[in-house]
């Protein structure tokens, strides 16, 4: 449940669209137990991530023993989370949860190569908990800010930015645009809520924050 303290790795805030592009991994020493980092295309290393999104599907894809796969959606894309016998708490959480639900996940990036050579990035969860919409909104805002800050600091003075330029062929501005659009959607959804206030016929345009199993309108 825990890890020895002072050197604990920080949990980066990254949207699914960027996380799924972070297929390059590296270590910072030759020690076989050296921590493995995923290289974020915005020029940062990530040994751990924290994200909040909507669990939309879950499935036991194990053959001999339980192996749960969850799809967790944020405003930019989908995180794939895999938990098996070595993550018993996270696995039993996925078993118990009913989709859709807002969940917060702390976990480690993992990569694997498919038969056709593409690198997939997934999350090996340390914990999964069900949370509320306010927590999700706060995470979106926080992650948008962190992403935009990373893009702003993306220059050759930053070793991970240099590494990203070598390893990826992606313009980091893409992720800034995604972050801004995530914030704009959230802001609009907020506005809708206010406009709706009182009038109980909620469903305006679909799309917005509609992935919440919202209050049933009075019939």
């Amino acid at each position, binding site marked *: *449940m*825990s*890890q020895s*303290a*002072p050197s*604990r*790795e*920080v*949990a*980066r*805030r990254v949207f699914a669209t960027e996380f799924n592009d972070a297929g390059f991994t590296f270590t910072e020493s030759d020690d076989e137990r050296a921590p493995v980092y995923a290289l974020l295309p915005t020029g940062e290393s990530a040994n*751990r991530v*924290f994200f*909040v999104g909507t669990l939309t599907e879950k499935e036991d894809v194990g053959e001999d023993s339980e192996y749960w796969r969850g799809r967790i959606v944020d405003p930019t894309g989908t995180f794939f989370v895999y938990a098996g016998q070595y993550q018993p*708490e996270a696995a039993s959480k996925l078993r118990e949860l009913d989709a859709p639900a807002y*969940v*917060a*996940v*702390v976990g480690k990036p993992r990569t694997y190569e498919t038969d056709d050579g593409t690198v997939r990035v997934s999350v090996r969860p*340390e*914990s*999964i*908990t*069900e*949370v509320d919409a*306010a*927590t999700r*909104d*706060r*995470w979106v*805002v*926080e*992650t*948008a*800010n*962190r992403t*935009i*800050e990373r893009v*702003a600091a993306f220059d050759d003075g930053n070793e991970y930015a240099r590494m990203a330029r070598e390893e990826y062929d992606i313009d980091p501005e893409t992720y800034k645009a995604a*972050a*801004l659009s995530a*914030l*704009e959607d*959230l*802001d609009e959804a*907020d506005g809708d809520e206010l406009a709706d206030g009182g009038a109980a016929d909620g469903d305006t345009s679909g799309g917005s924050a509609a992935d919440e199993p919202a209050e049933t309108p009075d019939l």
Partner: protein
Amino acid sequence: MSELRQEAEAIAEQFSDHLDVAPDDVEERLETLVNEYRVPLDEASRSVTNSYLEDAGMERDELGRGGSESVLVNDIDEDEQWVDLRVKLVDLWEPRSDSISQVGLLGDESGTIKFVAFETSDLPELDEGACYELSNVVTDEYEGSYSVKLNRTTQITEIDETIEVGDNADTVEGALVDIQSGSGLIKRCPEDDCTRVLQNGRCSEHGQVEGEFDLRIKGVLDDGETVTEVIFDREATEDLTGMTLEEAKDMAMDALDTTVVAEEMADDVLGRYYRVTGPTFRRYVLVDEMEEPGKVDTESALIEARSI
């Protein structure tokens, strides 16, 4: 004004009480070093300052940083800064070296900080319990802990008022990303003044003892940039989780297992955002106050994000 000019004026200002130094001369000397010899500005500035010190027959520590800043001790977070303090002498310790005249703890409303005064500085002795204005002390850092050094330019004025000494409270905010082992329903050693947490019914000092139940959460708050370990004591844990010690004991009794308590608590708090305030103890923040930051202001976040 150029950076060079600013630095030149700052240096001239520092010597204004001791030497007749014109900013133009300083600037010229800096320019030579920086532009002709490609010396970095901070190194150039250091070298020029040293040569003026020599001209004036002064030691570096006699040089005030031209009006040092008045600060609270818990706000000190940088090495080698010249600062002014209003403090109470909380504690005096036995100096471990002949070169040290006094060593101990100074405090103000923000907290406490270690201070050292050296024999060579020839300063008047400070009295325990008395309050002082200290101007021109220098900050020092060792393995992340800060202290202040008094020096021969330090002015000491005893003041006739009582300063309440604070507890170095820190506020940290972030997502609770981990609950560490030793959390939930725990047992402590009942021996006087021990309170150690038992491991399998044993105290590392007193051996097998009949422990007393307590609640605690050792957690990790993470804001995506730094991690901070925080400890919720029984009261703070009850406040955080809404579970009382009695309820926790009942739950453990029903399950014949104490670990269910920490699991139940983790369900309620992991992955949520908190802002906590409390004194720091080693690497921990001991939670006195806790609040949930509530609904995020998306509009101002959007305005801020667009401005980056």
